[in-house]
Protein backbone atom coordinates (compact mmCIF):
# COMPACT_ATOMS: atom_id res chain seq x y z
CA UNK A 1 0.00 0.00 0.00
CA UNK A 2 3.09 2.19 -0.05
CA UNK A 3 2.34 3.79 -3.44
CA UNK A 4 -1.34 4.43 -2.95
CA UNK A 5 -0.91 8.04 -1.77
CA UNK A 6 0.49 8.80 -5.23
CA UNK A 7 -2.42 7.10 -6.94
CA UNK A 8 -4.31 9.39 -9.31
CA UNK A 9 -7.72 8.24 -8.10
CA UNK A 10 -6.77 8.72 -4.46
CA UNK A 11 -5.51 12.20 -5.34
CA UNK A 12 -8.82 12.87 -7.10
CA UNK A 13 -10.62 11.96 -3.89
CA UNK A 14 -8.61 14.56 -2.01
CA UNK A 15 -9.22 17.22 -4.65
CA UNK A 16 -12.92 16.40 -4.67
CA UNK A 17 -13.36 16.61 -0.94
CA UNK A 18 -11.43 19.86 -0.84
CA UNK A 19 -13.57 21.29 -3.65
CA UNK A 20 -16.83 20.23 -1.99
CA UNK A 21 -15.84 21.43 1.49
CA UNK A 22 -14.81 24.86 0.13
CA UNK A 23 -17.76 25.24 -2.19
CA UNK A 24 -19.29 28.68 -1.54
CA UNK A 25 -22.97 28.17 -0.72
CA UNK A 26 -23.72 31.56 0.85
CA UNK A 27 -23.01 35.22 0.02
CA UNK A 28 -22.99 38.22 2.30
CA UNK A 29 -23.69 40.59 -0.52
CA UNK A 30 -27.03 41.83 -1.79
CA UNK A 31 -30.59 41.69 -0.58
CA UNK A 32 -32.19 38.75 1.16
CA UNK A 33 -33.70 37.69 -2.17
CA UNK A 34 -30.29 37.92 -3.92
CA UNK A 35 -28.73 35.88 -1.12
CA UNK A 36 -31.44 33.25 -1.41
CA UNK A 37 -31.05 33.09 -5.17
CA UNK A 38 -27.28 32.74 -4.80
CA UNK A 39 -27.70 29.94 -2.28
CA UNK A 40 -30.20 28.08 -4.45
CA UNK A 41 -27.90 28.27 -7.50
CA UNK A 42 -24.87 27.23 -5.43
CA UNK A 43 -26.72 24.24 -3.93
CA UNK A 44 -27.83 23.11 -7.40
CA UNK A 45 -24.35 23.61 -8.78
CA UNK A 46 -22.71 21.66 -5.92
CA UNK A 47 -25.32 18.92 -6.13
CA UNK A 48 -24.60 18.59 -9.87
CA UNK A 49 -20.90 18.38 -9.15
CA UNK A 50 -21.43 15.76 -6.42
CA UNK A 51 -23.68 13.77 -8.73
CA UNK A 52 -21.10 13.82 -11.55
CA UNK A 53 -18.43 12.69 -9.15
CA UNK A 54 -20.72 9.99 -7.83
CA UNK A 55 -21.18 8.60 -11.33
CA UNK A 56 -17.46 8.80 -12.00
CA UNK A 57 -16.45 7.09 -8.75
CA UNK A 58 -19.05 4.43 -9.26
CA UNK A 59 -17.32 3.67 -12.55
CA UNK A 60 -14.01 3.44 -10.69
CA UNK A 61 -15.65 1.11 -8.18
CA UNK A 62 -16.95 -1.12 -10.98
CA UNK A 63 -13.52 -1.08 -12.66
CA UNK A 64 -11.90 -2.18 -9.39
CA UNK A 65 -14.43 -4.96 -8.90
CA UNK A 66 -14.05 -6.19 -12.48
CA UNK A 67 -10.31 -6.29 -11.91
CA UNK A 68 -10.88 -8.30 -8.70
CA UNK A 69 -13.04 -10.81 -10.58
CA UNK A 70 -10.25 -11.25 -13.12
CA UNK A 71 -7.62 -11.68 -10.42
CA UNK A 72 -9.73 -14.09 -8.45
CA UNK A 73 -9.91 -16.34 -11.48
CA UNK A 74 -6.12 -16.25 -11.77
CA UNK A 75 -5.49 -16.67 -8.05
CA UNK A 76 -7.84 -19.62 -7.59
CA UNK A 77 -5.71 -22.79 -7.79
CA UNK A 78 -6.68 -25.45 -10.28
CA UNK A 79 -9.06 -28.17 -9.11
CA UNK A 80 -7.06 -31.35 -9.60
CA UNK A 81 -9.76 -33.74 -8.33
CA UNK A 82 -9.82 -35.64 -11.62
CA UNK A 83 -6.03 -36.07 -11.53
CA UNK A 84 -6.23 -37.43 -7.99
CA UNK A 85 -8.86 -39.97 -9.01
CA UNK A 86 -6.14 -42.12 -10.55
CA UNK A 87 -4.15 -42.11 -7.30
CA UNK A 88 -7.25 -42.80 -5.21
CA UNK A 89 -8.15 -45.71 -7.50
CA UNK A 90 -4.63 -47.07 -7.18
CA UNK A 91 -4.93 -46.92 -3.37
CA UNK A 92 -8.27 -48.78 -3.51
CA UNK A 93 -6.89 -51.37 -5.92
CA UNK A 94 -3.86 -51.98 -3.73
CA UNK A 95 -6.01 -52.24 -0.62
CA UNK A 96 -7.99 -54.94 -2.40
CA UNK A 97 -4.73 -56.72 -3.18
CA UNK A 98 -3.67 -56.43 0.47
CA UNK A 99 -6.99 -58.05 1.31
CA UNK A 100 -6.49 -60.83 -1.24
CA UNK A 101 -3.02 -61.42 0.17
CA UNK A 102 -4.08 -61.50 3.83
CA UNK A 103 -5.16 -64.57 5.78
CA UNK A 104 -8.85 -63.66 5.90
CA UNK A 105 -11.36 -66.20 4.56
CA UNK A 106 -12.03 -66.45 0.83
CA UNK A 107 -15.70 -65.75 1.48
CA UNK A 108 -14.61 -62.49 3.10
CA UNK A 109 -12.21 -61.67 0.23
CA UNK A 110 -14.89 -62.23 -2.38
CA UNK A 111 -17.65 -60.43 -0.50
CA UNK A 112 -19.67 -63.64 -0.05
CA UNK A 113 -19.56 -63.48 3.76
CA UNK A 114 -21.25 -60.06 3.68
CA UNK A 115 -24.03 -61.42 1.49
CA UNK A 116 -24.66 -64.31 3.87
CA UNK A 117 -24.49 -62.02 6.92
CA UNK A 118 -27.28 -59.90 5.51
CA UNK A 119 -29.81 -62.66 6.24
CA UNK A 120 -31.13 -61.76 9.66
CA UNK A 121 -33.99 -62.93 11.82
CA UNK A 122 -35.82 -59.66 11.03
CA UNK A 123 -35.13 -59.74 7.24
CA UNK A 124 -38.20 -59.39 5.07
CA UNK A 125 -39.05 -62.04 2.51
CA UNK A 126 -38.12 -59.56 -0.22
CA UNK A 127 -34.70 -59.05 1.38
CA UNK A 128 -34.12 -62.76 1.68
CA UNK A 129 -34.91 -63.23 -2.00
CA UNK A 130 -32.56 -60.39 -2.95
CA UNK A 131 -29.78 -61.94 -0.87
CA UNK A 132 -30.32 -65.35 -2.48
CA UNK A 133 -30.19 -63.79 -5.94
CA UNK A 134 -27.05 -61.84 -5.07
CA UNK A 135 -25.40 -65.00 -3.73
CA UNK A 136 -26.24 -67.06 -6.82
CA UNK A 137 -25.15 -64.22 -9.16
CA UNK A 138 -21.87 -63.75 -7.29
CA UNK A 139 -21.11 -67.46 -7.61
CA UNK A 140 -21.92 -67.23 -11.31
CA UNK A 141 -19.37 -64.38 -11.61
CA UNK A 142 -16.84 -66.67 -9.96
CA UNK A 143 -17.58 -69.33 -12.57
CA UNK A 144 -19.69 -71.59 -10.35
CA UNK A 145 -23.29 -72.27 -11.37
CA UNK A 146 -25.43 -73.21 -8.40
CA UNK A 147 -28.34 -75.58 -8.93
CA UNK A 148 -31.14 -77.02 -6.79
CA UNK A 149 -28.90 -79.83 -5.54
CA UNK A 150 -26.75 -77.19 -3.82
CA UNK A 151 -29.75 -76.06 -1.80
CA UNK A 152 -30.79 -79.41 -0.38
CA UNK A 153 -29.39 -78.66 3.05
CA UNK A 154 -32.83 -79.50 4.43
CA UNK A 155 -36.11 -80.52 2.78
CA UNK A 156 -37.37 -76.97 3.54
CA UNK A 157 -34.52 -75.11 1.87
CA UNK A 158 -34.85 -77.41 -1.13
CA UNK A 159 -38.60 -76.80 -1.34
CA UNK A 160 -38.15 -73.04 -1.14
CA UNK A 161 -35.28 -72.91 -3.61
CA UNK A 162 -37.07 -75.17 -6.05
CA UNK A 163 -39.66 -72.39 -6.54
CA UNK A 164 -37.06 -69.64 -6.31
CA UNK A 165 -34.86 -71.11 -9.05
CA UNK A 166 -37.88 -71.40 -11.34
CA UNK A 167 -38.02 -67.60 -11.20
CA UNK A 168 -41.39 -67.66 -9.53
CA UNK A 169 -43.20 -64.37 -9.01
CA UNK A 170 -43.02 -62.66 -5.64
CA UNK A 171 -46.65 -63.61 -5.04
CA UNK A 172 -45.88 -67.29 -5.58
CA UNK A 173 -42.76 -67.03 -3.38
CA UNK A 174 -44.89 -65.48 -0.64
CA UNK A 175 -47.28 -68.42 -0.76
CA UNK A 176 -44.41 -70.91 -0.79
CA UNK A 177 -42.77 -69.17 2.16
CA UNK A 178 -45.99 -69.14 4.18
CA UNK A 179 -46.59 -72.80 3.47
CA UNK A 180 -43.05 -73.75 4.55
CA UNK A 181 -43.08 -71.38 7.51
CA UNK A 182 -45.83 -73.33 9.29
CA UNK A 183 -43.80 -76.52 9.03
CA UNK A 184 -40.47 -74.81 9.59
CA UNK A 185 -40.43 -71.47 11.46
CA UNK A 186 -36.62 -71.46 11.20
CA UNK A 187 -36.60 -71.32 7.41
CA UNK A 188 -34.55 -68.07 7.31
CA UNK A 189 -31.91 -69.61 9.57
CA UNK A 190 -31.90 -72.79 7.49
CA UNK A 191 -31.42 -70.81 4.26
CA UNK A 192 -28.52 -68.95 5.86
CA UNK A 193 -26.94 -72.20 7.02
CA UNK A 194 -27.40 -73.59 3.52
CA UNK A 195 -25.43 -70.66 2.05
CA UNK A 196 -22.63 -71.18 4.59
CA UNK A 197 -22.66 -74.87 3.66
CA UNK A 198 -22.28 -73.95 -0.05
CA UNK A 199 -19.25 -71.81 0.83
CA UNK A 200 -17.71 -74.73 2.69
CA UNK A 201 -18.52 -77.17 -0.12
CA UNK A 202 -16.87 -74.95 -2.75
CA UNK A 203 -13.85 -74.12 -0.59
CA UNK A 204 -11.30 -75.54 -3.05
CA UNK A 205 -12.81 -73.82 -6.08
CA UNK A 206 -12.99 -70.50 -4.25
CA UNK A 207 -9.37 -70.88 -3.22
CA UNK A 208 -8.37 -71.53 -6.84
CA UNK A 209 -10.34 -68.49 -8.00
CA UNK A 210 -8.78 -66.19 -5.37
CA UNK A 211 -5.33 -67.49 -6.13
CA UNK A 212 -5.61 -66.91 -9.88
CA UNK A 213 -7.25 -63.49 -9.35
CA UNK A 214 -4.47 -62.53 -6.97
CA UNK A 215 -1.76 -63.57 -9.42
CA UNK A 216 -3.42 -61.71 -12.28
CA UNK A 217 -3.85 -58.49 -10.25
CA UNK A 218 -0.36 -58.76 -8.76
CA UNK A 219 1.07 -58.83 -12.28
CA UNK A 220 -1.06 -55.86 -13.36
CA UNK A 221 0.09 -53.80 -10.39
CA UNK A 222 3.64 -55.11 -10.44
CA UNK A 223 3.60 -56.29 -6.85
CA UNK A 224 4.06 -59.59 -5.06
CA UNK A 225 3.05 -61.15 -1.76
CA UNK A 226 6.03 -59.77 0.08
CA UNK A 227 5.87 -56.14 -1.07
CA UNK A 228 2.15 -55.47 -1.56
CA UNK A 229 1.62 -53.97 1.91
CA UNK A 230 4.67 -51.78 1.53
CA UNK A 231 3.53 -50.56 -1.91
CA UNK A 232 0.04 -49.89 -0.53
CA UNK A 233 1.35 -47.89 2.42
CA UNK A 234 3.65 -45.82 0.18
CA UNK A 235 0.91 -45.06 -2.38
CA UNK A 236 -1.65 -44.33 0.32
CA UNK A 237 0.74 -41.98 2.10
CA UNK A 238 1.62 -40.18 -1.15
CA UNK A 239 -1.99 -39.85 -2.19
CA UNK A 240 -3.02 -38.61 1.27
CA UNK A 241 -0.18 -36.11 1.37
CA UNK A 242 -0.98 -34.82 -2.11
CA UNK A 243 -4.56 -34.10 -1.07
CA UNK A 244 -3.53 -32.62 2.31
CA UNK A 245 -1.33 -29.96 0.71
CA UNK A 246 -3.55 -29.39 -2.33
CA UNK A 247 -3.88 -25.61 -2.69
CA UNK A 248 -7.37 -25.80 -4.24
CA UNK A 249 -8.86 -27.93 -1.44
CA UNK A 250 -7.24 -25.77 1.22
CA UNK A 251 -8.36 -22.53 -0.44
CA UNK A 252 -12.01 -23.50 -0.77
CA UNK A 253 -12.11 -24.35 2.93
CA UNK A 254 -11.91 -20.58 3.44
CA UNK A 255 -13.58 -19.18 0.32
CA UNK A 256 -16.61 -21.42 0.83
CA UNK A 257 -16.84 -20.43 4.48
CA UNK A 258 -16.00 -23.74 6.18
CA UNK A 259 -13.14 -21.98 7.97
CA UNK A 260 -12.57 -18.34 8.90
CA UNK A 261 -9.35 -17.00 7.43
CA UNK A 262 -8.95 -14.32 10.11
CA UNK A 263 -8.55 -17.13 12.71
CA UNK A 264 -5.57 -18.53 10.81
CA UNK A 265 -3.60 -15.34 10.15
CA UNK A 266 -0.62 -14.41 12.27
CA UNK A 267 -1.65 -12.27 15.22
CA UNK A 268 -5.05 -13.93 15.54
CA UNK A 269 -6.09 -14.88 19.08
CA UNK A 270 -7.44 -18.26 17.88
CA UNK A 271 -4.16 -19.08 16.16
CA UNK A 272 -2.15 -18.09 19.22
CA UNK A 273 -4.42 -20.16 21.51
CA UNK A 274 -3.97 -23.31 19.39
CA UNK A 275 -0.20 -22.88 18.97
CA UNK A 276 0.35 -22.04 22.64
CA UNK A 277 -1.55 -25.12 23.75
CA UNK A 278 1.37 -27.46 22.95
CA UNK A 279 4.26 -25.03 23.47
CA UNK A 280 6.53 -25.49 26.48
CA UNK A 281 6.06 -22.34 28.56
CA UNK A 282 2.65 -21.76 26.99
CA UNK A 283 3.82 -19.15 24.47
CA UNK A 284 4.79 -20.28 20.95
CA UNK A 285 6.13 -16.83 20.06
CA UNK A 286 8.84 -17.03 22.71
CA UNK A 287 10.37 -20.12 21.03
CA UNK A 288 13.49 -19.51 18.95
CA UNK A 289 13.65 -20.55 15.27
CA UNK A 290 15.16 -23.93 16.00
CA UNK A 291 12.57 -24.63 18.68
CA UNK A 292 9.81 -23.56 16.32
CA UNK A 293 11.07 -25.96 13.62
CA UNK A 294 11.15 -28.72 16.18
CA UNK A 295 7.66 -27.82 17.36
CA UNK A 296 6.27 -27.87 13.81
CA UNK A 297 7.73 -31.21 12.95
CA UNK A 298 6.52 -32.74 16.24
CA UNK A 299 2.95 -31.42 15.83
CA UNK A 300 2.81 -32.91 12.32
CA UNK A 301 3.51 -36.34 13.83
CA UNK A 302 1.17 -35.64 16.74
CA UNK A 303 -1.86 -35.43 14.45
CA UNK A 304 -1.14 -38.87 13.01
CA UNK A 305 -0.59 -40.31 16.47
CA UNK A 306 -3.83 -38.86 17.84
CA UNK A 307 -5.69 -40.17 14.82
CA UNK A 308 -4.26 -43.59 15.58
CA UNK A 309 -5.17 -43.26 19.26
CA UNK A 310 -8.71 -42.16 18.43
CA UNK A 311 -9.19 -45.22 16.24
CA UNK A 312 -7.74 -47.31 19.02
CA UNK A 313 -10.43 -46.03 21.39
CA UNK A 314 -12.99 -46.80 18.70
CA UNK A 315 -11.91 -50.44 18.41
CA UNK A 316 -10.66 -50.99 21.95
CA UNK A 317 -13.63 -53.23 22.74
CA UNK A 318 -12.32 -55.76 20.19
CA UNK A 319 -8.95 -55.81 21.91
CA UNK A 320 -10.54 -56.26 25.34
CA UNK A 321 -12.67 -59.12 24.04
CA UNK A 322 -9.63 -60.84 22.54
CA UNK A 323 -7.52 -60.34 25.67
CA UNK A 324 -10.29 -61.94 27.72
CA UNK A 325 -10.35 -64.87 25.31
CA UNK A 326 -6.56 -65.14 25.46
CA UNK A 327 -6.87 -66.43 29.02
CA UNK A 328 -8.78 -69.47 27.69
CA UNK A 329 -6.69 -70.09 24.59
CA UNK A 330 -5.05 -73.29 25.87
CA UNK A 331 -8.33 -74.95 26.75
CA UNK A 332 -9.85 -73.74 23.48
CA UNK A 333 -7.30 -75.72 21.46
CA UNK A 334 -8.67 -79.12 22.47
CA UNK A 335 -12.27 -77.94 22.58
CA UNK A 336 -11.96 -76.61 19.04
CA UNK A 337 -10.76 -79.95 17.69
CA UNK A 338 -13.48 -81.93 19.44
CA UNK A 339 -16.16 -79.43 18.41
CA UNK A 340 -15.05 -79.79 14.82
CA UNK A 341 -15.37 -83.58 15.07
CA UNK A 342 -18.78 -83.25 16.70
CA UNK A 343 -19.92 -80.98 13.90
CA UNK A 344 -18.75 -83.40 11.24
CA UNK A 345 -20.70 -86.14 12.98
CA UNK A 346 -23.83 -84.02 13.31
CA UNK A 347 -23.61 -82.95 9.67
CA UNK A 348 -23.68 -86.65 8.74
CA UNK A 349 -26.79 -87.07 10.89
CA UNK A 350 -28.40 -84.19 9.00
CA UNK A 351 -27.70 -85.95 5.72
CA UNK A 352 -29.19 -89.17 7.02
CA UNK A 353 -32.37 -87.38 8.23
CA UNK A 354 -32.66 -85.90 4.76
CA UNK A 355 -32.29 -89.35 3.20
CA UNK A 356 -34.94 -90.69 5.58
CA UNK A 357 -37.25 -87.98 4.37
CA UNK A 358 -36.53 -88.75 0.73
CA UNK A 359 -37.26 -92.40 1.31
CA UNK A 360 -40.54 -91.50 3.02
CA UNK A 361 -41.35 -89.40 -0.04
CA UNK A 362 -40.97 -92.50 -2.22
CA UNK A 363 -37.66 -91.44 -3.75
CA UNK A 364 -35.24 -94.29 -4.46
CA UNK A 365 -35.33 -97.98 -5.12
CA UNK A 366 -38.06 -99.88 -3.21
CA UNK A 367 -39.07 -96.66 -1.46
CA UNK A 368 -42.71 -96.14 -0.66
CA UNK A 369 -44.39 -92.89 0.18
CA UNK A 370 -45.23 -92.67 3.87
CA UNK A 371 -46.79 -89.41 5.13
CA UNK A 372 -46.17 -90.15 8.82
CA UNK A 373 -42.49 -90.88 8.26
CA UNK A 374 -42.22 -87.73 6.14
CA UNK A 375 -43.64 -85.60 8.95
CA UNK A 376 -41.41 -87.30 11.49
CA UNK A 377 -38.33 -86.62 9.38
CA UNK A 378 -39.32 -82.96 9.02
CA UNK A 379 -39.73 -82.56 12.78
CA UNK A 380 -36.45 -84.32 13.38
CA UNK A 381 -34.72 -82.10 10.86
CA UNK A 382 -35.98 -78.89 12.49
CA UNK A 383 -34.76 -80.02 15.86
CA UNK A 384 -31.44 -81.19 14.48
CA UNK A 385 -30.78 -77.94 12.59
CA UNK A 386 -31.32 -75.94 15.75
CA UNK A 387 -28.78 -78.15 17.47
CA UNK A 388 -26.38 -77.78 14.53
CA UNK A 389 -26.79 -74.01 14.59
CA UNK A 390 -25.81 -73.86 18.28
CA UNK A 391 -22.84 -76.11 17.60
CA UNK A 392 -21.68 -73.85 14.78
CA UNK A 393 -22.00 -70.82 17.09
CA UNK A 394 -19.82 -72.57 19.67
CA UNK A 395 -17.38 -73.70 16.99
CA UNK A 396 -16.95 -70.19 15.58
CA UNK A 397 -16.51 -68.82 19.06
CA UNK A 398 -13.81 -71.40 19.79
CA UNK A 399 -12.22 -70.76 16.40
CA UNK A 400 -11.23 -67.16 17.20
CA UNK A 401 -10.06 -68.09 20.70
CA UNK A 402 -8.02 -70.97 19.29
CA UNK A 403 -6.38 -68.65 16.75
CA UNK A 404 -4.91 -66.69 19.67
CA UNK A 405 -2.58 -69.65 20.19
CA UNK A 406 -0.66 -68.37 17.15
CA UNK A 407 0.36 -65.20 18.98
CA UNK A 408 3.87 -64.97 20.36
CA UNK A 409 4.66 -63.37 23.69
CA UNK A 410 6.10 -60.34 21.95
CA UNK A 411 2.90 -59.67 19.97
CA UNK A 412 1.93 -56.02 19.57
CA UNK A 413 -1.51 -54.46 19.95
CA UNK A 414 -1.74 -54.51 16.16
CA UNK A 415 -1.01 -58.22 15.99
CA UNK A 416 -4.03 -58.80 18.18
CA UNK A 417 -6.21 -56.44 16.16
CA UNK A 418 -5.13 -58.33 13.02
CA UNK A 419 -6.21 -61.67 14.50
CA UNK A 420 -9.79 -60.33 14.55
CA UNK A 421 -9.68 -60.10 10.76
CA UNK A 422 -9.16 -63.83 10.46
CA UNK A 423 -12.65 -64.58 11.76
CA UNK A 424 -15.51 -63.00 9.87
CA UNK A 425 -18.17 -64.29 12.32
CA UNK A 426 -16.24 -62.70 15.20
CA UNK A 427 -16.08 -59.33 13.42
CA UNK A 428 -19.73 -59.61 12.50
CA UNK A 429 -20.64 -60.20 16.15
CA UNK A 430 -18.44 -57.31 17.33
CA UNK A 431 -19.92 -54.73 14.97
CA UNK A 432 -23.49 -55.86 15.49
CA UNK A 433 -23.10 -55.74 19.26
CA UNK A 434 -21.89 -52.14 19.57
CA UNK A 435 -24.41 -49.33 19.06
CA UNK A 436 -21.87 -46.85 17.65
CA UNK A 437 -21.52 -48.99 14.52
CA UNK A 438 -25.23 -49.11 13.79
CA UNK A 439 -25.28 -46.14 11.43
CA UNK A 440 -23.09 -47.98 8.91
CA UNK A 441 -23.50 -51.29 7.17
CA UNK A 442 -21.44 -54.27 8.30
CA UNK A 443 -19.45 -54.02 5.06
CA UNK A 444 -18.59 -50.36 5.69
CA UNK A 445 -17.61 -51.07 9.30
CA UNK A 446 -15.38 -53.99 8.34
CA UNK A 447 -13.84 -51.96 5.50
CA UNK A 448 -13.00 -49.14 7.92
CA UNK A 449 -11.50 -51.63 10.35
CA UNK A 450 -9.40 -53.09 7.55
CA UNK A 451 -8.16 -49.61 6.60
CA UNK A 452 -7.30 -48.96 10.25
CA UNK A 453 -5.21 -52.13 10.41
CA UNK A 454 -3.28 -51.25 7.27
CA UNK A 455 -2.98 -47.51 7.88
CA UNK A 456 0.60 -46.53 6.94
CA UNK A 457 0.65 -43.89 9.65
CA UNK A 458 0.03 -46.27 12.50
CA UNK A 459 3.22 -46.64 14.43
CA UNK A 460 2.66 -46.37 18.18
CA UNK A 461 0.37 -49.39 18.49
CA UNK A 462 2.73 -51.56 16.48
CA UNK A 463 5.44 -50.93 19.04
CA UNK A 464 3.47 -51.62 22.21
CA UNK A 465 3.41 -55.17 23.53
CA UNK A 466 -0.16 -56.26 23.97
CA UNK A 467 0.48 -58.40 27.05
CA UNK A 468 2.48 -55.83 28.97
CA UNK A 469 0.76 -53.78 31.64
CA UNK A 470 0.51 -50.81 29.37
CA UNK A 471 -1.23 -47.47 29.57
CA UNK A 472 -1.29 -46.32 26.01
CA UNK A 473 -2.28 -42.75 26.93
CA UNK A 474 0.80 -42.31 29.12
CA UNK A 475 3.02 -43.86 26.44
CA UNK A 476 1.83 -41.30 23.88
CA UNK A 477 2.02 -38.39 26.35
CA UNK A 478 5.56 -39.38 27.35
CA UNK A 479 6.65 -39.68 23.71
CA UNK A 480 5.63 -36.09 22.99
CA UNK A 481 7.10 -34.83 26.26
CA UNK A 482 10.43 -36.10 24.93
CA UNK A 483 9.78 -34.17 21.72
CA UNK A 484 9.25 -30.99 23.77
CA UNK A 485 5.53 -30.71 23.26
CA UNK A 486 3.01 -30.21 26.03
CA UNK A 487 0.73 -33.23 25.66
CA UNK A 488 -0.74 -34.39 28.96
CA UNK A 489 -2.59 -37.66 29.52
CA UNK A 490 -5.73 -35.67 30.25
CA UNK A 491 -5.52 -33.86 26.89
CA UNK A 492 -5.65 -37.15 24.97
CA UNK A 493 -7.97 -39.28 27.07
CA UNK A 494 -11.21 -40.42 25.39
CA UNK A 495 -13.13 -37.40 26.76
CA UNK A 496 -10.71 -34.75 25.52
CA UNK A 497 -9.04 -36.22 22.46
CA UNK A 498 -11.51 -34.61 20.02
CA UNK A 499 -10.83 -31.09 21.31
CA UNK A 500 -7.06 -31.70 21.26
CA UNK A 501 -7.24 -33.11 17.73
CA UNK A 502 -9.17 -30.03 16.66
CA UNK A 503 -6.26 -27.84 17.78
CA UNK A 504 -3.66 -30.05 16.12
CA UNK A 505 -5.77 -30.11 12.94
CA UNK A 506 -5.80 -26.30 13.06
CA UNK A 507 -1.99 -26.17 13.24
CA UNK A 508 -1.66 -28.90 10.60
CA UNK A 509 -3.81 -26.94 8.15
CA UNK A 510 -1.48 -23.97 8.50
CA UNK A 511 1.52 -26.27 8.05
CA UNK A 512 -0.02 -27.90 4.97
CA UNK A 513 -0.73 -24.51 3.42
CA UNK A 514 2.82 -23.41 4.18
CA UNK A 515 4.10 -26.53 2.38
CA UNK A 516 1.92 -25.77 -0.66
CA UNK A 517 2.22 -23.19 -3.48
CA UNK A 518 -0.47 -20.93 -1.97
CA UNK A 519 -0.09 -18.76 1.12
CA UNK A 520 -2.53 -17.79 3.86
CA UNK A 521 -1.96 -14.19 2.78
CA UNK A 522 -3.15 -14.93 -0.78
CA UNK A 523 -6.16 -16.82 0.56
CA UNK A 524 -6.94 -13.81 2.75
CA UNK A 525 -6.77 -11.50 -0.30
CA UNK A 526 -9.10 -13.86 -2.17
CA UNK A 527 -11.58 -13.98 0.71
CA UNK A 528 -11.62 -10.16 0.90
CA UNK A 529 -12.20 -9.89 -2.85
CA UNK A 530 -14.92 -12.50 -2.73
CA UNK A 531 -16.69 -10.59 0.04
CA UNK A 532 -16.68 -7.48 -2.13
CA UNK A 533 -17.77 -9.24 -5.30
CA UNK A 534 -20.31 -11.30 -3.42
CA UNK A 535 -21.90 -8.13 -2.08
CA UNK A 536 -21.85 -6.62 -5.55
CA UNK A 537 -23.58 -9.67 -7.01
CA UNK A 538 -26.21 -9.54 -4.25
CA UNK A 539 -26.90 -5.88 -4.99
CA UNK A 540 -27.24 -6.66 -8.68
CA UNK A 541 -29.71 -9.43 -8.04
CA UNK A 542 -31.70 -7.12 -5.74
CA UNK A 543 -31.89 -4.50 -8.53
CA UNK A 544 -33.05 -7.13 -11.01
Amino acid sequence: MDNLSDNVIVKEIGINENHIENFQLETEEGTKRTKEKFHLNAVNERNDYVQRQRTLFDQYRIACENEMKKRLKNLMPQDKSSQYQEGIKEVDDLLYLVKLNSNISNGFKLGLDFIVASIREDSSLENINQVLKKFIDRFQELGITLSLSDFSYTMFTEQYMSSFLRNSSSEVMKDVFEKIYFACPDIKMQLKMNLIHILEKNKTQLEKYVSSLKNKLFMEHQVNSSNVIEKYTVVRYQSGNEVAIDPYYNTILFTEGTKKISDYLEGSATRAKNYNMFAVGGDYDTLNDEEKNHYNSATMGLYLTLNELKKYYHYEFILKDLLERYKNKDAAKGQYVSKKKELEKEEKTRVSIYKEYQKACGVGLFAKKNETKMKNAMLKMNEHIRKLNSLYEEYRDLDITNKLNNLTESASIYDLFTIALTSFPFLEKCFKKEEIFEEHSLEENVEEYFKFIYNPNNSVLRKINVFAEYDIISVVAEKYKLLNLVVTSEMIDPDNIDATMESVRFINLIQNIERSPISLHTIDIMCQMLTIIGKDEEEKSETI
Partner: protein
Amino acid sequence: MDEKIEIIQKLSNEDLLALHSAILNHLKYLDEKVITEDEEEVKEEQADGGEENG
Protein backbone atom coordinates in the same frame (compact mmCIF):
# COMPACT_ATOMS: atom_id res chain seq x y z
CA MET B 1 -11.51 6.15 -18.03
CA ASP B 2 -9.19 3.81 -19.98
CA GLU B 3 -6.22 5.49 -18.37
CA LYS B 4 -7.76 4.90 -14.93
CA ILE B 5 -8.48 1.27 -15.75
CA GLU B 6 -4.86 0.86 -16.72
CA ILE B 7 -3.80 2.33 -13.37
CA ILE B 8 -6.17 -0.03 -11.55
CA GLN B 9 -4.79 -3.02 -13.45
CA LYS B 10 -1.26 -2.16 -12.38
CA LEU B 11 -2.06 -2.09 -8.67
CA SER B 12 -0.95 -4.83 -6.33
CA ASN B 13 -3.72 -6.93 -4.76
CA GLU B 14 -3.38 -5.09 -1.46
CA ASP B 15 -3.49 -1.66 -3.15
CA LEU B 16 -6.47 -2.69 -5.25
CA LEU B 17 -8.37 -3.62 -2.08
CA ALA B 18 -7.28 -0.40 -0.38
CA LEU B 19 -8.29 1.71 -3.36
CA HIS B 20 -11.67 -0.02 -3.54
CA SER B 21 -12.20 0.73 0.13
CA ALA B 22 -11.19 4.39 -0.39
CA ILE B 23 -13.63 4.66 -3.32
CA LEU B 24 -16.46 3.17 -1.25
CA ASN B 25 -15.74 5.67 1.54
CA HIS B 26 -15.68 8.48 -0.95
CA LEU B 27 -18.99 7.37 -2.48
CA LYS B 28 -20.48 7.37 1.01
CA TYR B 29 -19.05 10.86 1.54
CA LEU B 30 -20.54 12.06 -1.74
CA ASP B 31 -23.95 10.65 -0.81
CA GLU B 32 -23.85 12.60 2.42
CA LYS B 33 -22.91 15.78 0.61
CA VAL B 34 -26.01 15.94 -1.61
CA ILE B 35 -28.20 18.74 -0.23
CA THR B 36 -31.83 17.70 -0.40
CA GLU B 37 -34.92 19.94 -0.41
CA ASP B 38 -35.92 18.61 3.00
CA GLU B 39 -32.61 19.69 4.47
CA GLU B 40 -33.09 23.16 2.94
CA GLU B 41 -36.58 23.47 4.44
CA VAL B 42 -35.33 22.51 7.89
CA LYS B 43 -32.55 25.08 7.52
CA GLU B 44 -35.05 27.79 6.48
CA GLU B 45 -37.33 26.96 9.40
CA GLN B 46 -34.41 27.17 11.78
CA ALA B 47 -33.40 30.51 10.25
CA ASP B 48 -36.99 31.86 10.52
CA GLY B 49 -37.30 30.71 14.10
CA GLY B 50 -34.02 32.43 14.91
CA GLU B 51 -35.16 35.71 13.37
CA GLU B 52 -38.49 35.57 15.22
CA ASN B 53 -36.81 34.88 18.52
CA GLY B 54 -34.36 37.66 17.82
